[in-house]
C-alpha cells in the first residue's frame, strides 16, 4: 500500500519592533538576564497591557504579503496556563478573532509550483526563557530569564497542504524570505527569532480522511525540519503497515540521534480557557489603514525574481537563487549598477562569491568584497588585464584581504601577458622543447594543440592571455604543417 504524508507547519516569528507588544521594554537580543523587564511584562499586581501599534502594522504587512484577508474586528484573548516563564499565568494571544485569515504562498520545487494555504496569522506575546542548571533531566533547579517575555510574535499557521519534507523545507524558506524582505523578522532560527513546529500524519494514497497526527518540535534549521519530517513519516508508515496505531502526541526532534522522541505522559491536552482579554479593547482596522500599509510594502521575493528575469535577462534559476536572500539580491543589483554585466555578475556571485560566504556562514552584507570592488574585478577581466582563471585567485585574495582587484594584481604581478612578441617567443620555446609532440601533431594529432597551449601557460605562470596563446600556437603550428 502506498502512503502519502500530510504536513502542516506552525511558525512563530519574533517581530523586529523596538519595544515589546504590551509595554515599552526593549526587544534587543542578548542582554543580561532580567534587565529588559518592567512591572507590566513581569506580571506584577495591578499592571495593564497597552498594545504596540507598530506590531500591529508589522502583522498587517506579513498578512498582506501572504495574500490574507485582514479582519475588521480584532480581539486579543487570554490563553491560560501555569509555567514559570509565563509571569501573568496567561499569554495574551488571539483566538476567535485573529488579525488575518485565508492566505497563501507559492513554493517552487524544481520547476513544480504549488500554492500552500495559510489558515491564519495572529499576534501574541512571547514567554520568557528557562535556563536549566545542568542538563534538563538532572537539573536541580532552573533559572528564569524574563527578557523575552512580552516580545511580539506572529503565529503563521499553514493549511495541511504540504505532502513531503522537501516541500515543508521549501515552504519554510519562502516564508522566512518573505518575512526578512518585509523587515518584519530577522529570520534567525538559531537565535530563536523564527521557530517552526510541524503537524504530520500519514494516510493511504488516495484517501481524503486525515490520519492521527503528531506534533514535532525542536527543529532549529531547514535541515532539521526536513530530516525530522522524513523520519517521522517513515516511523508512522511503519506503524500503519504493522497494523499499529499512531498515538497523538508531541514528539521532539533529536538531531544527535536522528530520531523523534515521544513526550508521552508529560503532555496532557491543555484546556487553555480562552476568553477575550478584558484589559484590551477590540481593535477596528479600517480600509484606510490597510491600504496605507499595502502601499508601503517593499518588493517581495516573487516580484523581485520576476523583475530580475525581465530587466536583467537572467534565467529563472539564477533569479530564484539570487532572490532567495534579500541581501544577496541587493548585492547583485549593486554590482550591476557599478558596471558589471548581469549575466557575468550572477554567475560569479552564484559560484565564487557564495562559496566563500557559505563556508563562513556570512551574509552578503558582511562580504569583505564590496559590490564596487567586484565590478572592478570584472573590468580587469573585460579589459584583458587578467584572465578569467587568474581572476578567481585574485578574487580569493580580495575576499581574504578586502583589497581592490587592481591592488592585488599589482602586488602579485598578475597582469596578463598580452604582448604578441613575448608570447610568440614562449611558443617558439615550447615547440623547440617538445619535438616529439610536434611530430605527432604534424602526423595528424590535432588535439595536441592544447598541449602546447598548456606548456606556454606553464612557462608564463598562467599569466599569458589564453586566447592569444591559442591563436599564436595555432598559427605557428599550422605554418609548420603547411611548411612540411
Amino acid at each position, binding site marked *: 500500500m502506498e502512503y502519502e504524508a500530510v504536513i502542516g507547519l506552525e511558525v512563530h516569528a519574533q517581530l523586529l519592533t523596538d519595544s515589546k507588544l504590551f509595554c515599552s521594554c526593549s526587544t534587543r537580543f542578548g542582554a543580561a538576564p532580567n534587565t529588559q523587564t518592567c512591572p507590566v511584562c513581569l506580571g506584577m499586581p495591578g499592571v495593564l497591557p*497597552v498594545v504596540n501599534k507598530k506590531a500591529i502594522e508589522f502583522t498587517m504587512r506579513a498578512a498582506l504579503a501572504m495574500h490574507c484577508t485582514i479582519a475588521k474586528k480584532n480581539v486579543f484573548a487570554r490563553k491560560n496556563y501555569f509555567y514559570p516563564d509565563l*509571569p501573568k499565568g496567561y499569554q495574551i494571544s488571539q483566538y476567535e478573532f485573529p488579525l488575518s485569515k485565508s492566505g497563501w504562498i507559492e513554493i517552487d520545487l524544481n520547476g513544480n509550483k504549488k500554492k500552500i494555504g495559510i489558515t491564519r496569522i495572529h499576534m501574541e506575546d512571547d514567554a520568557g526563557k528557562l535556563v536549566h542548571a545542568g542538563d534538563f533531566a538532572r537539573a536541580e533547579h532552573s533559572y528564569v530569564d524574563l527578557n523575552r517575555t512580552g516580545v511580539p510574535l506572529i503565529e503563521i499557521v499553514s493549511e495541511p497542504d504540504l505532502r513531503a519534507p522537501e516541500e515543508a523545507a521549501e515552504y519554510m524558506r519562502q516564508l522566512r524570505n518573505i518575512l526578512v524582505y518585509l523587515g518584519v523578522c530577522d529570520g534567525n532560527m538559531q537565535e530563536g527569532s523564527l521557530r517552526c513546529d510541524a503537524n504530520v500524519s500519514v494516510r493511504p494514497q488516495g484517501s481524503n480522511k486525515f490520519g492521527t497526527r503528531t506534533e514535532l518540535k525542536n527543529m532549529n534549521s531547514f535541515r532539521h525540519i526536513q530530516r525530522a519530517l522524513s523520519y517521522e513519516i517513515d516511523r508512522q508508515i511503519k506503524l500503519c503497515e504493522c497494523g499499529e496505531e499512531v498515538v497523538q502526541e508531541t514528539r521532539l526532534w533529536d538531531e544527535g540521534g536522528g530520531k523523534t522522541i515521544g513526550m508521552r505522559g508529560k503532555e496532557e491536552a491543555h484546556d487553555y480557557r480562552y476568553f477575550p482579554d478584558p484589559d484590551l479593547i477590540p481593535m477596528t482596522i479600517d480600509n484606510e489603514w490597510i491600504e496605507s500599509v499595502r502601499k508601503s510594502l517593499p518588493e517581495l521575493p516573487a516580484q523581485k525574481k520576476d523583475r530580475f528575469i525581465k530587466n536583467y535577462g537572467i534565467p529563472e534559476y539564477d533569479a530564484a537563487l539570487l532572490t532567495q536572500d534579500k541581501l544577496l539580491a541587493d548585492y547583485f543589483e549593486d554590482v550591476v549598477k557599478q558596471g558589471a554585466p548581469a549575466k557575468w555578475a550572477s554567475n560569479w556571485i552564484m559560484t565564487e562569491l557564495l562559496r566563500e560566504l557559505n563556508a563562513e556562514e556570512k551574509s552578503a552584507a558582511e562580504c569583505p568584497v564590496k559590490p564596487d570592488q567586484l565590478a572592478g574585478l570584472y573590468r580587469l577581466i573585460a579589459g584583458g588585464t587578467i584572465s578569467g582563471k587568474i581572476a578567481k585567485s585574485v578574487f580569493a585574495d580580495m575576499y581574504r584581504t578586502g583589497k581592490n582587484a587592481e591592488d592585488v594584481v599589482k602586488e602579485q604581478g598578475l597582469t596578463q601577458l598580452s604582448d604578441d612578441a613575448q608570447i610568440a617567443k614562449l611558443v617558439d620555446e615550447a615547440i623547440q622543447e617538445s619535438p616529439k609532440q610536434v611530430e605527432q601533431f604534424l602526423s595528424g594529432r590535432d588535439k595536441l594543440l592544447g598541449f602546447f597551449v598548456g606548456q606556454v601557460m606553464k612557462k608564463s605562470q598562467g599569466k599569458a592571455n589564453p586566447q592569444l596563446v591559442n591563436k599564436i600556437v595555432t598559427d605557428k603550428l599550422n605554418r609548420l604543417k603547411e611548411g612540411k
Partner: protein
Amino acid sequence: MRLCELTITELSGMLERGECSSVDITKSVYERISEVDKKIHAYLWTNEEYALSQAKEADKKRKARENLNPLLGIPIGLKDLLLTKGVPTTCASRILENFVPPFDATVVKKLKERGVVVVGKLNMDEFAMGSTTEGSAFGPTRNPWGLDYIPGGSSGGSAAAVSSDMCIASLGTDTGGSIRQPASCCGVCGIKPTYGRVSRFGVIAYASSLDQVGPLGKNVRDTAIMLEAVAGFDRCDSTSVKMDVPRYTDSLTGDVKGLKIGLPKEYFVKGIDPEIADTVRNAAKQLEKLGAEVIDVSLPHTEYCIATYYIIAPAEASSNLARYDGVRYGLRVSGEPDTLINMYKATRDRGFSAEVRRRIIIGTYTLSAGYYDAYYLKAQKVRTLIRRDFEQAFQKCDCVITPVLPTPPYKLGTKINDPLEMYLSDIFTVSCNLAGLPGMTVPCGFSKENLPIGMQIMARHFEEEKIFKVAYAYEQSTDWHKRKPKV
C-alpha cells in the same frame, strides 16, 4: 470639634486661613487611630512618621503658595489593593503579606501630586472578594456604629475609617458594590464612577471588566472633590476613556427642579426588609418635595443580575489571580516533594483564603472547555440585556434610585458560613457594574438598631454630575451626614 472630625472643605478653608496646619490635622487623625482602631481595625498599615513627613511637605508647599488645591495636606486612607510605592500592599491576603510595590497606582500618583497625606492602608475582603470585610486574612473590620456589626465590604476599612474620623476621606474599589455597600453600612458617601472614568493601573485586579476605583467621603462635596482629583484618561490603562473631567463641585447647586427620578419596581419586591424599602421611599419623597419628579420604571432582567455577576467576576478573577504563583514575588511555599507543581499548589493553598479559592475554581469551571458557551459567553450576552434595561429606563428618567442592601447591617459571623446567602445581598449593586454605570451611596436614614441605611443613585454613563446634583440636594435637606458614631 477635633480636626479629625471635620471635612475636606472645612479643613481646606482652615489651612488656607492659617488656622491649623497639615501636621496638626495629621496628628489629630493619628490620635483618633490610636484611640479607636484597636476596636475597629480599619487599618492594615500605618506609620505616623511617614504621614507627618508628608504633612510637613504639604505645609511647606502651602507656605510657598505652591500646589494650592482643596486636597493639599489632607489625610487620606487608601484601600490596600492600591499599589503604593515603598509601602506594603497586601490585598488583605497572605499571598502578598510582605509585598512592597516598586511603583504607585495612577490614582495614588494623582493624589500625591495634589499633596495629600497618605495615612495608611485600609482593610478589605481578601482580593476584594466579599461583602463584609470578614474575608480579610488579617481579621475583620468592625462597624463604628455597632462594633458587633459588619461594616460592609469589600472596602470595609475605607468606609469605617471615614465614618470614625480615622481619615478625612478614602479611596476604595467597587466590582459588585464594594464601595457602595460599606458606605451604606457605615453611614458615609461613596461613589463608583462610570467604568473607564478612573484609571485601573496599579490597582490589584479582581474582575477587569467590572472593577473601578472610587472615593468615600463624609459628605457629597468631599466625595465630588476626591473624584475630580482621581478621574481622567490614563495611557497606561487601555480601558480608561479619553474624556475631560468636569468640575463635579459645580453640580452642587441644590437645585433638582424638573429632574426625573425612577424607582425600579424590581428593586422593591417582597423579601427586602420593609425598613429598607420605607427609608428609601421616604428619601424619594423628600426629593419630590425639593422639586424632582419621581416615577416608576422597570428593569426586567434584574433577577438575572446575581447569576450573571457570579459567572463573569470569578471567571476574570481566576485568570487575574494566576500570577500569584510564588515565582516572582509574594509568598512562596515549597511542596513535598519539592517540585514545580507542588510549589504552585502549596503556595496558593496557603496564600489564598477559602473564599478566594472558591471563586477561582468557579471561574476556572465557567471558562473551561465545554462550559464556556453555556456560562461565560451566555452571561456576557445577558449582561448586554441588563445594560439595555437601563438604557430604556434612562429614556424616561435622569437618575434611578434604589436601596443599597436588602437588609440593614447584620452581625459579624452571620453569613460567613453561607457564601450563597452572602452573594444574594449584592442584588442591588451588581447591575451597576455589569452595565458600567456610575452609582453612588448617600446616607438616608437609620434602622431601629441605629445602624445606617443608604440609598443608591445611578445615572447614565459619564453623568456623575447628575448623581452629585441629586445627592447634594437631598443631603442638604437632611442631617444624616452630620451624625457621628459614638466609638
